[in-house]
C-alpha cells in the first residue's frame, strides 16, 4: 500500500491509532471545558497535543511517554482531573506494546490513593483500546509478511517458468541441429559410401562393357546389388528419422479430423515448411485447446480453421459461430493461459474476439536466426 497515493481515508491500524489519539484529546478537552479548570489545563492539553503530533510525525522512543506522565502528574495539584490525562500515555504505551512505560505513574497514583472509580474505568478503557489496536497491528504485520513472502515466491516461480520456456525453445533448436547432424552423418556413412562405390563400379563396368570383357556382367551385378543396397539403407534411414506421430501440418490435420461435432473447414495459406519445429509445439496445443473448448462450451454449427504462413509470421485462427456460455468465458482458461505464456515467451500472442461467435487467434513470429 502506498501511503502517498491513497487519498481516501482507509481503516488501517495506523489510522486507528490516530483516531484513538484524537478521541482521547477531544474527551480531555471536553473534560477541561466542563471542569471550569484554570489555564493550567490548557497548557497540559496543548502539551499533550504537541506530543501526540510529534508521535504522529516522528517515531519517538518509548521513554518519552514518561515525560508525558510526569507533566500530567505535575499538573494534578493545579487541576485535579489532570490524572485523567494519564490515560493518553497509557493508551500510547499499550498500543506500541511497551506496557512497562505506563506502570510507574500508575503505581504513583495508587500510592497517592487518588484512584476514583471513573479514573480506573478510563484507564482500563484506554488500555483496552490500545491493546486491541496493538493486536490488530500485530495481525496485520503477520499477514503482510506472509503476503510479501508469497508474492516473492510467485515472482521467483514466474521467473523460473520464463527461463524454462526459453530453455525449451533452445533445446528444440539444438535438437533440430543435432538431428540434422545425425541425418547428415548417417547419409554420408552408409548411403554415401554405397553410392560412391556404385558410381565407381558403374564407371568400371562401362569400360569393361566397351571392351566386351566377360567380367562386365559380374560388375553389373555388383553395381545392381550396391544400388539396391543403398536404396534399402536410404529407406531405413528415412524410416528411422520419421516420427511415428505425424509432424507439422499433418499433425494439425490429424487433430482437426478428430473433431466430429460439426462441419470443420481447414484452410492453409503459405508454405508450412517455413515453420520451425518449436512453433509447432505451440500451434498444436493451441488448436487442441480451442477445439476442446468449442466441444465443451459452444454450441457451434461450423468451425473454420485458418493457418496463414508468411516468411515472418504464423497466424492460426480458430473460428466458431456458437455462442459461448458467458460464465465459462470470463477470462482465459488455465490451458489457454499456459499456452499464451509460452507464446509470449517467443514473442507471439494469443487473443480472442467474441463478436459474432468466437474467434481465437494465435500469432507467432518466425525468427530467422539460424
Amino acid at each position, binding site marked *: 500500500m502506498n501511503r502517498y497515493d491513497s487519498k481516501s481515508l482507509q481503516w488501517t491500524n495506523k489510522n486507528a491509532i490516530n483516531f484513538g489519539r484524537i478521541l482521547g484529546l477531544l474527551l480531555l*478537552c471536553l473534560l477541561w*471545558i466542563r471542569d*471550569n479548570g484554570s489555564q493550567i489545563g*490548557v*497548557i497540559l*492539553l*496543548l502539551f499533550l497535543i*504537541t506530543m501526540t*503530533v510529534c508521535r504522529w*510525525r516522528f517515531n519517538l522512543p518509548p521513554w518519552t511517554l514518561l515525560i508525558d506522565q510526569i507533566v500530567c502528574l505535575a499538573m494534578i495539584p493545579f487541576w485535579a482531573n489532570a490524572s485523567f490525562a494519564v490515560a493518553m500515555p497509557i493508551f500510547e504505551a499499550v498500543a506500541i506494546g511497551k506496557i512497562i512505560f505506563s506502570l510507574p505513574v500508575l503505581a504513583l497514583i495508587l500510592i497517592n490513593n487518588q484512584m476514583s472509580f471513573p479514573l480506573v474505568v478510563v484507564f482500563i478503557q484506554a488500555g483496552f483500546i490500545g491493546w486491541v489496536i496493538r493486536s490488530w497491528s500485530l495481525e496485520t504485520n503477520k499477514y503482510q509478511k506472509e503476503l510479501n513472502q508469497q508474492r516473492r515466491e510467485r515472482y521467483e516461480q514466474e521467473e523460473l517458468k520464463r527461463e524454462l520456456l526459453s530453455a525449451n525453445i533452445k533445446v528444440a533448436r539444438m535438437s533440430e541441429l543435432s538431428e540434422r547432424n545425425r541425418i547428415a552423418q548417417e547419409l554420408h556413412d552408409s548411403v554415401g559410401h554405397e553410392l560412391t562405390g556404385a558410381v565407381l563400379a558403374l564407371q568400371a563396368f562401362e569400360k569393361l562393357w566397351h571392351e566386351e570383357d566377360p567380367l562386365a556382367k559380374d560388375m553389373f551385378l555388383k553395381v545392381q546389388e550396391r544400388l539396391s543396397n543403398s536404396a534399402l539403407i536410404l529407406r531405413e534411414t528415412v524410416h528411422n528419422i520419421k516420427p511415428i506421430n505425424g509432424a507439422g501440418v499433418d499433425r494439425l490435420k490429424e487433430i482437426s479430423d478428430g473433431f466430429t461435432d460439426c462441419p470443420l473447414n481447414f484452410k492453409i495459406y503459405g508454405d508450412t515448411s517455413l515453420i520451425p519445429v518449436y512453433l509447432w509445439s505451440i500451434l498444436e496445443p493451441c488448436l487442441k485447446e480451442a477445439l476442446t473448448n468449442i466441444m465443451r462450451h459452444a454450441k457451434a454449427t461450423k468451425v473454420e480453421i485458418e493457418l496463414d504462413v508468411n516468411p515472418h509470421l504464423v497466424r492460426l485462427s480458430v473460428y466458431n459461430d456458437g455462442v459461448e456460455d458467458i460464465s465459462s468465458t470470463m477470462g482465459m482458461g488455465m490451458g489457454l493461459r499456459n499456452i499464451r505464456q509460452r507464446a509470449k515467451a517467443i514473442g507471439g500472442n494469443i487473443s480472442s474476439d467474441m463478436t459474432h461467435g468466437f474467434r481465437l487467434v494465435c500469432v507467432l513470429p518466425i525468427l530467422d536466426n539460424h
Partner: protein
Amino acid sequence: MTVFNFVFKRYFKRPSSIFFLLILPIALVFLPMGEWPPIPLGFQYYGILLLFISVKLTSIIMIDRENKVLLRIGVAPITHFQYLLENLLAYGIILIGLNMIVVIMGSIVYRESFNYYLLLFIIYSFFSMTALGFSLAWYSLFQNKDTATSILSGVIMLMAMVGGVLWPIQIMPVILQRLAMLLPTYWLGQSITFLAFRAPISEQIIPLTMMLIFSILFLIVGSRRKII
C-alpha cells in the same frame, strides 16, 4: 544559503510586500490610544497584521509547491530540512526586523519605559514565530494556494475576534472564553493586556510559553514534506 537569499529577493520584488511591510505597520503605530486595554490600538492590532504578513511570507513555499519547484528541490543536493530552515530563518529575520521597526517607531510616538518596549518586542517576536508556524501548517493542509488564502483571511479574522484581540474577551459567552484559550491569538491578547496593565513580568511566563508551544505544534504539523 541560496534559498535564504532568494527569499529576500522574491519577497521584496512584489510591490504589495512594501505596502504590507512598511506602510501598514507604521500607519498602525499612529492609531489612537485604546480605551481597553489602555494601550495604543496599533500595538493591539499589530498581531493580526503579523498573521497576515506571515501568511504572505510563507506563501513562497506554497508557490514553490504549486510550481513544482519543490519537486526539483527534491532531487537537488539540499535536504528538505535545510530548505525549510533557510526559508523560516529568512521569514523570521524579516518579521523580527519589522517588529523592531514598529517598536522603535512606537517608542518615538509614545513615551514609555525601555522595559515596556523590550517586553513588547519579545511578545511580538514570540507571536511572529507562532504566526509563521500557523501559516505553514495551514498551507500544508491545502494543495491549491488560492483555496488556502481565500479561507485563511476569514479564519484569521475569526481567530482575532474570538481570541480577544479586537475586543475584550470578557464580553463573550463563558464557553467561548474557554474555547478561545485553544487559540494562539488569545495568548497574544493576554500578553498585551498584561503589558497594558503593567502586570509583573512573571505573569507573562504562561502566555509566552503557550505561544512557544503553539509554534512548535504548528511547525511539527507544517514541516511535513509535501511535494504535490
